[in-house]
């Protein structure tokens, strides 16, 4: 298998702008089959814009996105059919029960699932008893589980998760990490964005640090730490003597708080 075949996602020379603001500048990276890839960056760095271009929610100014061999501009439906997506703030029709939301998304992905099939899916995530509740009545952790199961309901080759653990308590977060790893074990690739360095180190095989719309580092978390551990900026921001991914991240992206 050559490198091209090993990639489930290839982003090449991507540029995205909003008016005069250049949100993403000539970004290139790939996600390999069966890996969990993390996109890290401060607020406004361009993570969500990059993800939105991959999802087909916005048209890039230039560059290409190839999902499972399909160019997302030329073959948008094929590209989107290969993707499972969990948006940053996913909301479903508040009038629908959880079971109906799953039925809707099974249908739009072309699956014909019976009520029993859907209840079995909910049983897998310990939410069978919530099937006839409305999505808004679920706790944050339960909503994330439903959202994640919907993003994988059609067995996609690549799952995109936009800050999936934001707002979750530690138990729910750990449980979600396990579910993300289970997705990989089934042979899927995962591309996630996160603000959590702990999450990136614990879950991701490789990460890219993005800032001001550009990728400034890309490798395994440990390789990035090793590469920068002797940088004076990294040592100066280190708080406990031991160099962490967060120290490297702060040194590379600066201490200033972003809006």
């Amino acid at each position: 298998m050559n490198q091209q075949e090993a990639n489930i996602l290839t982003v090449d020379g991507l540029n995205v702008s909003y008016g005069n603001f250049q949100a993403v500048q000539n970004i290139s990276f790939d996600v390999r089959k069966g890996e969990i890839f993390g996109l890290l960056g401060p607020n406004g760095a361009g993570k969500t814009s990059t993800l939105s271009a991959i999802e087909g929610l916005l048209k890039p100014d230039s560059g290409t996105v190839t999902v499972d061999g399909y160019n997302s501009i030329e073959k948008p439906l094929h590209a989107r059919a290969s993707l499972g997506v969990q948006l940053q703030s996913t909301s479903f029709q508040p009038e629908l029960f959880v079971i109906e939301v799953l039925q809707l998304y099974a249908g739009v992905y072309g699956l014909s699932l019976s009520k029993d099939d859907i209840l079995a899916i909910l049983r897998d995530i310990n939410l069978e008893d919530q099937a006839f509740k409305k999505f808004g009545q679920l706790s944050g952790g339960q909503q994330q589980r439903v959202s994640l199961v919907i993003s994988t309901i059609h067995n996609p080759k690549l799952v995109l998760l936009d800050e999936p653990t934001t707002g979750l308590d530690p138990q729910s977060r750990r449980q979600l990490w396990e579910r993300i790893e289970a997705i990989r074990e089934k042979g899927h690739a995962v591309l996630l964005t996160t603000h959590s360095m702990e999450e990136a180190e614990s879950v991701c095989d490789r990460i890219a640090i993005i800032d001001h719309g550009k990728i400034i580092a890309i490798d395994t978390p440990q390789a990035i730490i090793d590469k920068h551990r002797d940088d004076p900026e990294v040592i100066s921001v280190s708080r406990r003597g031991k160099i962490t991914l967060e120290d490297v991240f702060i040194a590379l992206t600066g201490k200033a708080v972003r809006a």
Partner: protein
Amino acid sequence: MATIIPKTSAVLTSLLRADFTTQWRNRRAVMLTLIVPIIILTSWKGLISIVGGPFVLANSITIGLFASGLMGYANAVARDRDKGIFQRLRVAPVPFWAIMASRLLVQLAMILIITTAVFVIGKEYDGITLSPVAYVFTYFTAIIGGAVSLSLGQMVVGWIKNPETINSTTRLIYLAFIMVGMFGELNKLGETMDDAVQWSPYGAVKTILSTSMEPDKWTSHASMALLVTLVYIIIFTTTGIKWFKWNTK
């Protein structure tokens, strides 16, 4: 493994099931949409001998269409856009037109329900009956009139992003149409205003509806009103689609 693109018919079926379920769970709002036309229909019973049954039926249907299309459709789209419901659907392999087609088919059902409710109550309570051809003709013009109100609603959600502002704007337009439209019908607002009302979206829709209830009395004025409604549909739809954004950010 080859990537499977779901059939558009299957996608549309799923969307329709969800959208009709949503509409059914919002049936209280649907009932409220029906209340104003029914109040007019029943309270104007004494006017029927003066202005004629078609006038009363046409006004009731027109108000119902604008309540449903302008307020119901626009506010539902504004809410779902603001909550990110459209964005979640758009990342699925769904043709974008199918998302809106499903919404519009629900609205088409609403148009037929409103028209039928007015016909039934008009017959049972007010004793207004039409010929079979007139009923068929009126359903047809009700769909055209509904398209005017839906396209106007589309223009509002294209023009304005904030759902609260959309809510208040559609209510203001609705109120203006009812007040000015009805007084204009009474020819008491002066010639210029009467003309403006007659060729306004409300007036044009009301004209084609009332004339279609007496097809043998179809005039060139009604044909012109039909043409005007089609122009309104084209203008409102074109601008509404051009300005429309799938998210509010």
